């Protein structure tokens, strides 16, 4: 039993799933589901189809270089059965998967950071500039209090002087 990779979307193909297409030059294309198979028949290039791993890795959306990928190599020589080795491998697999997943999430959130900061700046600027456009009811009492606090001082001394002069 071997877990293959879908030629189109690069997801794992478990036993009992998918179709293998053999071309006349003996190249085998494996597909995980009919969606990928149909896209292949339409002659679409996976590097241009947004939801495939090939596109995402090509355009830097997902991480490409990581040590966790080294663990998943295609091995053609069968390993001699060793109970300890098998046990350790089976314990390690979910750990490695979790680490890879966490690193991938970090990569994606790092990618989003500068965009998020720009959004925040833009929003706060908009708030400062255009707060007057909102109806008075929506603006909280604190804000209206701040705005209405700025009062012009009435100068009364001058009028008294005028009166006194005359």
């Amino acid at each position, binding site marked *: 039993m071997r877990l293959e990779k879908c030629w189109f979307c690069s997801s794992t193909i478990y*036993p009992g799933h998918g*179709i*293998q*297409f*053999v071309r*006349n030059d*003996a190249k085998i294309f494996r597909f995980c589901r009919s969606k990928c198979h149909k896209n292949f028949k*339409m002659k679409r290039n996976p590097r241009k189809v947004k939801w495939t791993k090939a596109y995402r890795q090509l355009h830097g959306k997902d991480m490409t270089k990581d040590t966790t990928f080294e663990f998943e190599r295609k091995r053609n020589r069968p390993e001699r059965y060793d109970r300890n080795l098998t046990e350790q491998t089976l314990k390690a697999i979910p750990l490695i998967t979790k680490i890879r997943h966490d690193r991938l999430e970090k990569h994606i959130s790092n990618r989003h950071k500068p965009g998020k900061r720009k959004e925040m700046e833009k929003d706060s600027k908009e708030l400062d500039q255009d707060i007057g456009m909102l109806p008075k009811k929506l603006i909280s009492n604190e804000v209206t209090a701040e705005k209405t606090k700025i009062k012009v001082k009435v100068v009364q001394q001058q009028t008294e002087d005028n009166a006194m002069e005359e």
Partner: protein
Amino acid sequence: MAAFLRSKCPSVGRTLMGSLGNSLFGAANSSVEAVARPSHCDAISQQIRTFIQMRTNLKVVDNSGAKRVMCIQSLRGKKGARLGDTIIGSVKEAQPRGKVKKGDVVYGVVVRAAMKKGRSDGSEVQFDDNAIVLVNNKGELIGTRVFGPVPHELRKKKHLKILALAEHIV
């Protein structure tokens, strides 16, 4: 429906029309998907792959001299032959100096079928075209070479000579 498709896709290959024609006449229960808006490339690539029946053209992939054979009888199955089955065919096109001539009635073993064949591990295999290798009525090969990939389903059918001569076993 056939006429409608024909008018929409003028450059559709012969096999599509042939297989649709066969499904209308023959006993094959091929499910014809109702395509709402058949665009040019959809109709060609979403071809319905069915059994190898009477009037099916097959490519000959050995050096026996024949190039194209038309199936006149499938020796297995009511609906038609699949991957690994034997058929009787009539040679439609042959090379000038070969072991078989045009018009000969020959037996052949299907080595590549465009219709998917299920394997015991649950996977399914599908080839690009329909191809046969010519055989005499005892099951011995007429040609001495086999071209292209060949499935290992032939091992179960005891066509070991074909597997031995094959370039690539899938």
